[in-house]
């Protein structure tokens, strides 16, 4: 059996840096160093585990993003993915999630797939809806937000821990899945993996290759507009006391003062 797995990954500004907005109210990508979204490492990990358990499986990592996004692909390749596809086009700047799902869906179809694996959300935009949109566009089942996933006999099965219930979900391939950070720690690239990644193929595509018009994406193609972005005022420093036996009482008095007790 062969299994073609495509993992969608995003190159994001490091969450531990001072992230901010550029003048056009898109994410400022120059202000902070970028990296492979940590939540997508879980997707790469699960894809690799599924591939390792399946004969003739191939893992392709896919990203749509600026030139630097190649770093994210390189990281995924060094973890063990087989090849990479990078969709890069100046017209992509400012694309919203609906536009991004169009680009990725076209690219996934271009690559050929049995299973698409995504992270649960990006660590910058954080909407968490791209996998569902991909499934809608590709017209295949979505099996998303999984804390556990496995593939056998042409079916994908997983556990979804929702707000109201835990569900076991199952769908026939081809399908789109997304995995959470509960799905299992991602591996670190080994030295051998890092060296091997340098020789792995990276295919570059632009919008024309995917038959997408510039108007369908970018800021102009977006169906939402950000009107303003305001830095939240820093919280004013409160009172800090050192516990010398009275800490609990002092805290209770503070809470009582604010009518919580």
């Amino acid at each position, binding site marked *: 059996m062969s299994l073609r797995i495509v993992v969608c990954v995003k190159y994001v500004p490091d969450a531990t840096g001072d992230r901010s907005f550029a003048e056009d109210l898109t994410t400022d990508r120059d202000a902070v160093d970028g990296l492979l979204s940590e939540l997508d490492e879980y997707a790469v990990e699960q894809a690799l585990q599924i591939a390792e358990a399946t004969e003739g499986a191939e893992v392709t990592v896919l990203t749509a993003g600026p030139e630097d996004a190649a770093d994210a692909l390189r990281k995924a390749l060094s973890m063990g993915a087989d090849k990479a596809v990078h969709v890069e086009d100046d017209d992509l700047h400012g694309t919203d999630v609906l536009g991004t799902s169009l680009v990725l869906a076209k690219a996934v179809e271009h690559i050929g797939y049995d299973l698409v694996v995504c992270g649960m959300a990006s660590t910058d935009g954080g909407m*968490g809806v791209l996998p569902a949109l991909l499934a809608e566009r590709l017209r295949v089942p979505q099996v998303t937000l999984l804390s556990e996933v496995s593939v056998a006999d042409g079916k994908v099965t997983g556990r979804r821990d929702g707000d109201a*219930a835990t569900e076991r979900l199952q769908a026939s391939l081809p399908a789109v899945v997304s995995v959470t950070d509960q799905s299992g720690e991602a591996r670190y690239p080994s030295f051998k993996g890092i060296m091997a990644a340098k020789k792995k193929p990276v295919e570059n595509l632009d919008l024309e290759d995917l038959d997408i018009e510039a108007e369908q994406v970018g800021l102009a193609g977006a169906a939402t507009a950000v009107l303003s972005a305001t830095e939240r005022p820093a919280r004013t420093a*409160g009172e800090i006391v050192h516990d010398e036996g009275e800490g*609990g009482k002092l805290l209770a008095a503070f809470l009582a003062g604010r009518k919580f007790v």
Partner: protein
Amino acid sequence: MTEVLVLVDHENGTVRKPTLELLTLARRLGDPVAVHLGPGADIAAPVLAEHGATRVLAADAPEFADYHLVPKVDALQAAFDAVGPAAVLVPSSGEGKEIAARLALRTGSGLVTDAVDIAPGDDGPVTTQSAFAAAYSTTSRVTRGVPVVTVKPNSATPEAAPAAGTVEELAVTFGPLATGTAVVSRAPRESTGRPELAEAAIVVSGGRGVGSAESFSVIEDLADALGAAVGASRAAVDAGWYPHAHQVGQTGKTVSPQLYLAAGISGAIQHRAGMQTSKTIVAVNKDAEAPIFELVDYGVVGDLFAVVPALTEEIKARKG
């Protein structure tokens, strides 16, 4: 009259509080029309009416329970086509966001997720969201189609605004995608008897500093004295000390209670993402340099095993 669709979040007809908040927000934009999918519309209707629903469009079918999510998208789309709404409001759960996204794509509409406020504007509703771990607040507007907006819990105070709430049958034809993902089994989450984390007015959270599953009783005792929900950091969840459903942060729940109390939590950016818009924040941590202290209105540097039980006792004593 302008109508606004509100997707009802419920368990067998028991409506969850965020839905009532959505009805209250929807009234700013038009007449709320509630969409109730699955059993219990007769139980839900009076509550929905009490909070402003002029109509309740109800559909029940085995597909809603047997197959995942897409049947609900088909039904919400049927309501969309029948009503021609000015906006669609959906609760911001994982499922709510995915339903909203697919509806937006199908109807050629713009999507806003995780709004914390929504107000009418000259060019359609203006939404407010948090960005970058709540370091920023942004406002947005949908520029194409009908705004589809998911709204976070605690974004408004539910107001009584009695309306007719007439129950009408919603006719739904399921498309070919509806049966793609089977729900093989479903185990409802057991109630803890404490307030729901995302909806609670007070949240008491424990982190790695709590040290073990057993010691979480210290956190629970304080929560019970305050009538609070219990939260946990990812470190505590990953260690297996507390269930993931209680995780606060980027990959857990976002909470915005009146009071957030963090014990044995350092205050990493991913944790802050889930709690920094809380009204009052207090922390107990033995490390005076812990970043959580940058956020607090009141902080105690000390051992949580001394401070928290003493606090619990004092609260009980004050309550008499």
